[in-house]
């Protein structure tokens, strides 16, 4: 489990988090959403031990990752959005990482490369950005860490690769693994992520499963916008409106519309889900 308790963090003169608390439980594929600059990447860096909280705690299985104990770091793998391109080939790269990750499985890595349609013997330098990224995703999954942090993983992937990405994540998710996907490309991961976390400056606006969201909010798709909607948005053919759902009707959640609803109704949402 990842526990973030009353955490403060900032870069030099720029505060990012002020007293936020948030837990990540085992076995979920979390979607971490938020506007630009709210600290999604910073949060992943704190969890992976790349940054140290100014105050409060960030614990991974009850240990602060910033202690950088091998026993903790071997459980965490983070693919940043602006990853450094490794030297040489993907196969040599993972062989170099293997000693640090006890559950690393090279045979599985080769299978993953095949599934993702990349050649693990080819030099990173000769690959396109999308191919490099697919190799890193294959690497990350084959290291079999308990915690997998992915920052904008679908950026740069072509359309078939995005489908493959969803399939390999669904395949390699399990009860012992916690996957956190930070993204703006919600359509790429729409049916994959659950629960959803929406971060704002200084606070967690929403942390809820799809089921919890659908119990509290109703997404109406109709020719007109509903007058009492928390938020409504024009879509081809009409409007989608989000209203409170006291009678617990079932509806289809659109993550983009949810996001806009949350940003326009911060206090209401916090009360509704608090």
């Amino acid at each position, binding site marked *: 489990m990842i526990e973030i308790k009353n955490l403060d963090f900032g870069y030099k003169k720029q505060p990012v988090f002020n007293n936020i608390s948030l837990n990540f439980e085992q076995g979920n594929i979390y979607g971490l959403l938020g506007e630009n600059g709210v600290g999604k990447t910073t949060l992943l860096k704190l969890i992976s031990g790349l940054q140290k909280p100014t105050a409060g705690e960030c614990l991974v299985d009850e240990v602060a990752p910033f202690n950088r104990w091998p026993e903790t770091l071997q459980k965490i793998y983070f693919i940043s959005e602006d990853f450094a391109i490794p030297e040489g080939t993907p196969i040599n790269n993972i062989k170099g990482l293997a000693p640090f990750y006890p559950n690393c499985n090279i045979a599985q890595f080769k299978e993953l490369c095949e599934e993702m349609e990349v050649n693990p013997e080819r030099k990173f330098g000769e690959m396109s950005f999308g191919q490099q990224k697919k190799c890193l995703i294959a690497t990350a999954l084959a290291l079999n860490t308990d915690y997998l942090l992915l920052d904008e993983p679908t950026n740069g992937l072509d359309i078939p690769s995005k489908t493959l990405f969803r399939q390999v994540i669904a395949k390699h998710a399990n009860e012992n693994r916690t996957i956190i996907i930070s993204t703006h490309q919600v359509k790429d991961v729409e*049916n994959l992520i659950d629960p959803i976390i929406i971060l704002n400056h200084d606070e967690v606006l929403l942390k809820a499963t799809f089921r919890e969201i659908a119990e509290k909010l109703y997404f109406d798709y109709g020719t007109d916008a509903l007058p009492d909607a928390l938020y409504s948005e024009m879509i081809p053919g009409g409007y989608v409106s989000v209203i409170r759902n006291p009678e617990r009707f079932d509806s*289809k959640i659109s993550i983009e519309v949810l996001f806009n609803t949350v940003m326009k109704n911060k206090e209401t949402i916090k009360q509704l889900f608090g």
Partner: protein
Amino acid sequence: MEFNAHKPIYLQICDQLYGQILSGELKADDRLLSVRELGIELGVNPNTIMRSYETMTAANIIYNKRGIGYFVSENAKNLVLNEMKNEFINAELPQVIKKMRLLEITPEEFLQYAKA
């Protein structure tokens, strides 16, 4: 599978399996893909598939053999037929009727098309 309809995904997944039960592609006592297998195929969170299976189990359309998997129930086809009929009458038909009124299609005219 395209998820386009304005219906929760877990129910769309039920519908897909209902379609296969009605067409005879899935028969009584056939084993369904595991939650995991279907999740991989669709690229969908396993929790969502689990919810679809729970919904169909609660409706007695499928049953769970512990540790083995989910299977199609004996009278699944009838149950699905009833369930989908009700849904059609309560949810889809009113839309059709609304549109017929808008387009000034009389029931008599409609019948002609329905018989064709």
